[in-house]
């Protein structure tokens, strides 16, 4: 039983990172009623843009580039942590603009468009950064391993978990305590009413998409050192995200977090017994939950049920 602890820790860390991804996803679903299959692509974009920022490849060879590489790895990493999600947010806004012709039509079209967008973004990544494996370098302070209770743990995973908790808390704070958050929550309940109250729905949608994409991009920057960085990591992420919000219930904040932890634990623990099948466990989980509780654990009726 004691030997299960590292796997549980692994699982919890994974769960927290999934929660970050799922939150962005559920915000978009809640307000836009669009299933954003390109969410994984934003995840990847965040990581790749962070890579470009840290490495300074955009401006290599220029004076700025020389100054940039003289900065400490910590400073460069921090800016990667900021710019990665920012660029992902930009991509999110572009996608939202492309989605406008499909509003008012069946959800299928939005789904299909985001699927196509995911493909396009992945191919663009392949074009710009190549198809090979890249690695995101992290500062020494959070890298490496440490010993605790006779078992080796990775420092970085703890940092990632801590950062995710912080990020989730900040998102919650934003949604619950700020007026903007209130507008977003209202929009996810009833977008018509929000428009009737005089808020610009177009701007709201743009903002939500940007926010959701930024969250995904942030998750990407954090996960890249754990999961590696290659063009199709987006796909590996979007289905779990989709799964998680369905299991947790569409539109529910804590549902997404709880479901994400559940999924992470499932993957982590099966990793101890049957590592090869661990990713399958989340699909089994989905089938079980949706089979018994059609709306997921905390779900409310939503427009998705058409």
């Amino acid at each position: 039983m004691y030997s299960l602890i590292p796997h549980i820790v692994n699982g919890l860390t994974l769960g927290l990172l999934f929660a970050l991804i799922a939150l962005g996803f559920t915000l978009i679903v809640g307000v836009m009623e669009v299933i954003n299959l390109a969410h994984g692509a934003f995840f990847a974009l965040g990581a790749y843009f962070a890579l470009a920022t840290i490495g300074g490849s955009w401006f290599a060879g220029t004076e700025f580039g020389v100054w940039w590489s003289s900065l400490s790895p910590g400073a460069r990493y921090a800016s990667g942590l900021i710019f990665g999600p920012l660029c992902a947010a930009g991509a999110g806004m572009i996608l939202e603009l492309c989605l406008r012709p499909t509003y008012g039509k069946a959800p299928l079209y939005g789904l299909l468009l985001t699927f196509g967008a995911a493909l396009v973004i992945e191919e663009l990544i392949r074009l710009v950064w190549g198809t090979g494996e890249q690695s995101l370098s992290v500062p020494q302070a959070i890298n490496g391993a440490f010993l605790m209770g006779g078992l080796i743990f990775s420092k970085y995973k703890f940092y990632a978990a801590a950062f995710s908790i912080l990020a989730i808390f900040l998102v919650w704070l934003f949604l619950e305590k700020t007026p903007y958050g209130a507008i977003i929550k209202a929009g996810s309940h009833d977008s018509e009413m929000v428009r009737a109250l005089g808020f610009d729905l177009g701007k709201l949608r743009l903002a939500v998409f940007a926010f959701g994409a930024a969250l995904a991009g942030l998750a990407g920057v954090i996960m890249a050192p754990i999961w590696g960085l290659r063009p199709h990591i987006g796909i590996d992420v979007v289905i779990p995200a989709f799964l998680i919000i369905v299991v947790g219930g569409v539109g529910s904040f804590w549902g997404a977090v709880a479901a994400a932890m559940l999924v992470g634990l499932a993957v982590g623990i099966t990793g101890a017994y049957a590592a090869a099948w661990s990713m399958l466990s989340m699909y089994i989980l989905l089938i079980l939950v949706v089979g018994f509780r059609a709306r997921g654990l905390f779900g409310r009726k939503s427009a998705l049920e058409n």
Partner: protein
Amino acid sequence: MISLSDIPARGGSPFTPPMIVFLLALATAPFWLEAVGLYSYLGIEITIWILYAMGFNLLFGYAGLHSFGHGAYLGVGAYAFGLFQHHVGVSLWGGLLAAVLAATIAGAAVALFVAHRRGIYFALLTIAFGQVFWFCAIKLRWLTGGEDGLLGIPRPDLVVGPLRVSLQENTSLHWFSAAILGLAMLGLWRLVNAPFGRVLQAIRQNEMRARFAGYDVWRIKWLVFTLSASVAGLAGGLFAMAQESAYPDVMSLHQSGLIVMMILVGGGLVSFWGPVLGVLVYFIARDIIGGITETWLLWFGLMFVVMVMVRPEGAAGLAHVVRARFARAPVKTPVSAPAERSA
């Protein structure tokens, strides 16, 4: 926007002129394929995929049930065919029967779960089941050969009475597949013009109303899902023969998504011929653009995105509009059917 119900079905006739043209083109393909810069294996792939896509469109376009995990049944069919050849006996009809049977059982089992749902939940569950099949195909190495696939699947001879025809040559296999496709196409055409086809469309437009009208909606959804899987299984068996192997790739989410894209691009949502156009566009683009650049999927993806934004009725819809304009007939005014808008 036009829909499948708008285009008048020539209910009475089992053949239509487009069908005859298409079958003729298919039959003569081995003769002109290479002259236009294509090759015989591609012809077989296209034929098999058209079969797959048409069966899938029964579910996706006509019934409006958006499954994103249909590749699983193509894969199951392929593996079943291969396993039959390896473990039971080398037989063409036996193998194809095994392929259809296996895919039908798989589809029927999954349909039991998903027939209750619709919309996004339906889609997600189909994805989940598709992933389960894909995982199993990769993990159960002793059965499926894992990621390396099931190799060494022979192409059994076609035996009809005293006649024995070898299918080793790509040309003969092409004709055999084309014959199967032709028969399937006739069958599907009859089906969508029969009352069953109309019920499917009713379910697509408004499931609740169809239920109130007295139809056993659950059973019909289950049936169409299973049927669609059977056709996919048949295509899978043919594909195993063409490749002489079976791989798990077709079961992946990526490839299941590709068939959806093909359906949309071709206009399967609005036309019986949509899947055919979609498959043709995809494969020819892959081969021709793929020969020029390695980023051909980027261009295909961009085209797809633009199409969803601008003309979701796809190529068939476009053709309809163009034809109507030429005929100077009043174009059917695009009154959005209520089901196209979210309630």
